[in-house]
């Protein structure tokens, strides 16, 4: 036991060497792009219980409002200019999904299944104990870093929006 204790000081000193110094503030363009592309976007939300609950709550509230035919969140761009943004139609599509109308849902917005799954994941994670929340977050962070899924989804939505407006994919 005393042997281990002898190393405790070593351990503490090991630690004292660990710090972060801003040695390289000008990262290369390649590494900047890599950082931007493989940056975990979704995982940090799961670490923040309040944000998680607020997002899941607002999401469910929004879907509920639209399902009930009430006035939910309105896209200001579409309301003023009449041009739907890439996210317009997601809630309506999710409501259709919940009612089992898969074809109509995908026709309304192809990304709705992904967003509905995300909403369900948020709601589940909000109910998880802190320890499991961290595990899920770490797993998702690793997945996001490996695949760059956040940027892929954003690009996918922009391309999908462009194709819809070009008339190549039906609204």
């Amino acid at each position, binding site marked *: 036991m*005393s*042997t*281990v*204790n*002898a*190393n405790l*000081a*070593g*351990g*503490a000193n*090991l*630690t004292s*060497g*660990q*710090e*972060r110094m*801003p*040695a*390289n*503030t000008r990262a290369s363009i390649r590494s*900047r792009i890599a*950082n*931007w592309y493989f*940056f*975990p976007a*979704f995982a*940090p939300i799961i*670490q923040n219980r309040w*944000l998680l609950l607020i*997002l899941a709550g*607002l*999401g469910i509230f*929004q879907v509920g409002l*639209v399902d009930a*035919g*009430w006035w*939910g*969140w*309105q*896209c*200001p*761009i*579409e*309301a*003023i200019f*009449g041009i739907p*943004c*890439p*996210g*317009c139609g*997601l*809630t309506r599509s*999710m409501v259709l999904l919940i009612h089992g109308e898969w074809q109509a849902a995908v026709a309304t917005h192809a990304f709705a299944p992904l*967003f509905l799954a*995300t909403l369900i994941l948020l709601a589940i994670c909000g109910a998880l104990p802190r320890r499991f929340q961290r595990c899920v*977050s770490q797993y998702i962070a*690793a997945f996001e870093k490996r695949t760059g899924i*956040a940027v892929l989804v*954003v690009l996918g939505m*922009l391309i999908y929006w462009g194709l819809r407006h070009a008339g190549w994919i039906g609204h």
Partner: protein
Amino acid sequence: MTTMFILSTVMTIIQIVGLILLIMVLIKQFKHGGVLQGIIGLITCGFWTFIWGWMKHKPLELTKIMVVWTILIVSPMVLTAVFGFAMMSEMANMLAGMTGEASLTQMKDSFDLKSRKNAAKANIKVNMPNQPKREPQKGDSEAKADWSQKALALWQNGEYTDPNQAVDLWNKAIQDNPNSAESYNNRGLAHYNLKKYPQAVEDYSRAIQLKPDYVVAYNNRGNAYYELTQYDLAEADFNQSIGFEPGYAKAYLNRALTNYQLDRNSQACLDFKKACELGECEGQQWAVQNSICQ
């Protein structure tokens, strides 16, 4: 008909003001949150911008804007409750005609679940400049002494020369004594060197569990969270570390960098200054050179 006209005028004003506020917050989001944040805000009908605005309302002084925007968002729901859905639906169709849309029988909606917590800023590298000082071996167990001693011998110039071997050695040390907080902490450092940050977090957490006032383990876990870009958790750990040991310069330095990543430059400067007062001045020099602090 008069009610309808007033209602549609009110709604038009609400929508125009709402758009102006969205643009104002969106500009802040692009500026402080990064391009990806801004694009996500744009493609989600402003929903993520709204959430982000509330998240950042204090440091960016957006409270008034966000309160007004929230009132504008809630007011159509209240109006629907007051005037009834039929009238609101008719009025929505009327507005749709004004904007040139084909039809608007349903209320338009949008929703986004995707987000990014923090901007991808300058990539700040980790530097571990100090050579550890080791206490002389006083062991009464050769086997236990061996693993730890060998592992410590691998630590040079602020990192393990062979982190994989260090992990193996600390595994054996932990097998010998599963209740050694320091062994977990040191294995965490090896995982950190291997860029296995989740595993490092696990080890530091175990170390803290075994020794709840383990100041350096909090600091190290903060660093691992920093690498995982979980800055809120990193900050919480540095706060803990400073709480236990108010003279811990490296924790101030690390918290300063975390604040910098969270766009809280004024707080970052205070922490850089404090770290310098305690003997760690490289951070402050860097911040001054890069015009972050004066």
